């Protein structure tokens, strides 16, 4: 015992159970000796006795060990969660403000929600964003699915190069990608507008689509595909009727991520748009630069709601067990 360090609480080590256990064994042995039984059968209580559980905090939710030794960890974590959520709650709170000023509370009202839903510029920008996001999501999901299903047949070097190329858009600073894409489309003579916007969005959405689909494919049992082909399905039929249905949760969650990433993008779109194709983030940016405005609170709250809905849906889909 003296070898243990001071901060090791002997009570935290749950082997105290074994003392009890030992006492019970001794008691039974004594009973047996008294009854003349030579102890060939196992006593009833011992059959039910489970082995002592290992001291793992994971899953077992054991409360009296590792966690308790770092009380600051829990405190800091709650602080960090508050830090993440309080600013957004403040925005939501002020979106229900009735006053003309963004920050002067003048009573609860849906007034600014009404104003936002009838504001032509905001509706136009939202439409543009939705069109771009919808096309970019559809394109990047299609390309992402094809890519994930085909990448297995590349050699190690080929797939490493392809993966680096696909993921590069996540690594390059957005400002650089934005100005570089602008320079590029100008060099090849493409006019700014919907086409370069959609193509650029598709490019940076593909890695977000590929991630969950690839993860999903790795969990699938490839014997299903084998079985389908043995039953006479052609390679293409197997892909359409076996692989894709099994991949669906991954595909949906990838598409949702692509949609959010495209809806949120400000930096890259900023260099590719013209006056006619102002997206929602670009419009919000110009509004914010003009000064704090109550309608921004409402738009921000709605965008937060979108993020919550999409993240929850995506998480539920990813965590659902394959049937």
């Amino acid at each position, binding site marked *: 015992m003296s070898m243990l360090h001071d901060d090791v609480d002997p009570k935290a080590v749950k082997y105290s159970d074994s003392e009890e256990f030992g006492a019970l064994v001794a008691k039974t042995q004594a009973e047996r000796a008294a009854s003349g039984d030579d102890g060939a059968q196992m006593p009833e209580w011992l059959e039910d006795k489970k082995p002592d559980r290992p001291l793992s905090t994971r899953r077992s939710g054991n409360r009296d060990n590792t966690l308790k030794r770092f009380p600051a960890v829990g405190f800091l974590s709650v602080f960090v969660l508050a830090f993440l959520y309080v600013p957004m709650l403040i925005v939501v709170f002020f979106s229900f403000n009735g006053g003309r000023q963004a920050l002067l509370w003048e009573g609860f009202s849906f007034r600014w929600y009404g104003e936002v839903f009838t504001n032509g510029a905001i509706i136009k920008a939202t439409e543009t964003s939705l069109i771009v996001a919808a096309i970019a999501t559809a394109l990047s999901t299609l390309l992402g699915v094809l890519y994930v299903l085909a990448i297995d047949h590349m050699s190690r070097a080929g797939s490493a190069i392809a993966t680096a190329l696909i993921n590069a858009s996540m690594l390059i600073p*957005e*400002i650089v990608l934005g100005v570089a894409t602008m320079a590029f489309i100008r060099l090849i003579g493409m006019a700014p507008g919907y086409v370069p916007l959609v193509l650029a969005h598709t490019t940076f959405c593909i890695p977000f689509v590929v991630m969950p689909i690839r993860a999903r494919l790795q969990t699938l049992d490839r014997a299903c595909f084998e079985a389908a082909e043995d039953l006479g399905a052609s390679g293409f039929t197997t892909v359409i009727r076996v692989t894709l249905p099994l991949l669906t949760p991954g595909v949906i969650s990838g598409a949702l991520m692509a949609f959010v990433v495209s809806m949120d993008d400000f930096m890259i779109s900023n260099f590719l748009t013209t006056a006619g194709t102002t997206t929602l983030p670009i419009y919000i940016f110009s509004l914010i630069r003009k000064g704090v405005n109550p309608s921004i609170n409402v738009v921000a709250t709605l965008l937060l709601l979108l993020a919550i809905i999409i993240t929850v849906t995506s998480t539920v889909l990813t965590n659902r067990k394959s049937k």
Partner: protein
Amino acid sequence: MSNTTNPNIKSDKPPIGNDKTGTIAAETTTVVSKNATASKTSAPKETAWQHWFGSPHEVKPGLLHRAYAVPSIIIGLLFTLGPMCVIVAFSFMSRPDMGGGVKFQFSTDAYEKLLFRHDFFGNRFFDTRYLEVFGTSLWQALLTTVVCVALAFPIALWMSMKSAKTQQILVLLVTIPFWTNLLVRTYAWMLILNENGPINWAANLLGLGKQQLLYTSFASVIGLIYTFLPFAILPMYSALSGFDFRLVEAAYDLGARKLTVMRRVILRAAMPGVMSGVALCFIPAFGSYVQPVLLGGGRVLMVGNLIASQFAEARNWPFGAALSTVILAITLLGAFLATALGGRASRKAGMTL
């Protein structure tokens, strides 16, 4: 569907298992059958292209031929690699006499402008103006990274010690800000730090008077920290989520103190996550644009803003391209270092466990 049915499948085709050995076995069978057919007919020669980009084996069931990956690769080549080549090329070109764009004439003026300045008579002076901008960016990004990692470590550890169900909910809570619009998150801090905002209201109540919080470099750093915190938490959590906490018990049993356990057991296991967290915070923070503009006002000039202004107002495209090339090189180097260090750290962790 389940693994147990796998060995029972009788198939004339090589079985493709879920596990590694199955795949290897399948591959060897394919190779053997290929060789058998090859000996009958003329042996197909492997070209250099096939050597690097895949051998001409059959398509695995349920998957597609590798030609289907081509559209994604083409769009990647066009809209990622293409623009990068263009920006590097533009940085070595010269500025047209008026307006934006470039003149196709080789010049290193853009890089020279980074370090030197010419006066009216053509004399050259060493100029630190742009180096200072890099310094500000570096300082803001480093501060952001350090604070993010320091705040992310406890919550990542805390999350990884919870039950599986709680972990899912906590990951969701950290992911929601991650997917929330960047402008919304930045705007939230404009509300808070505003001179009529909640902080100044509280300061007023305490009799401290109004403070100028918005449009300072402090506001810009807060905005950056707020934006990139989830980027640090998620990789650290994923490094720790598979951690076997019995190792901590073992360390205690062997007589380690709290801090020793933290440093030599937990932190070491979290190291790969810390490295990718550092990369994921530092790289985007270094090239950030929105936070310094909206929260820093005119007071914080970072490389991102400088680049944007070269392509918009000042219209010196070659100089903007040179700045882009420099931060591209810095971030790629940083990413490479983080991957290398992270890989080493994970190998080390793997060896100790």
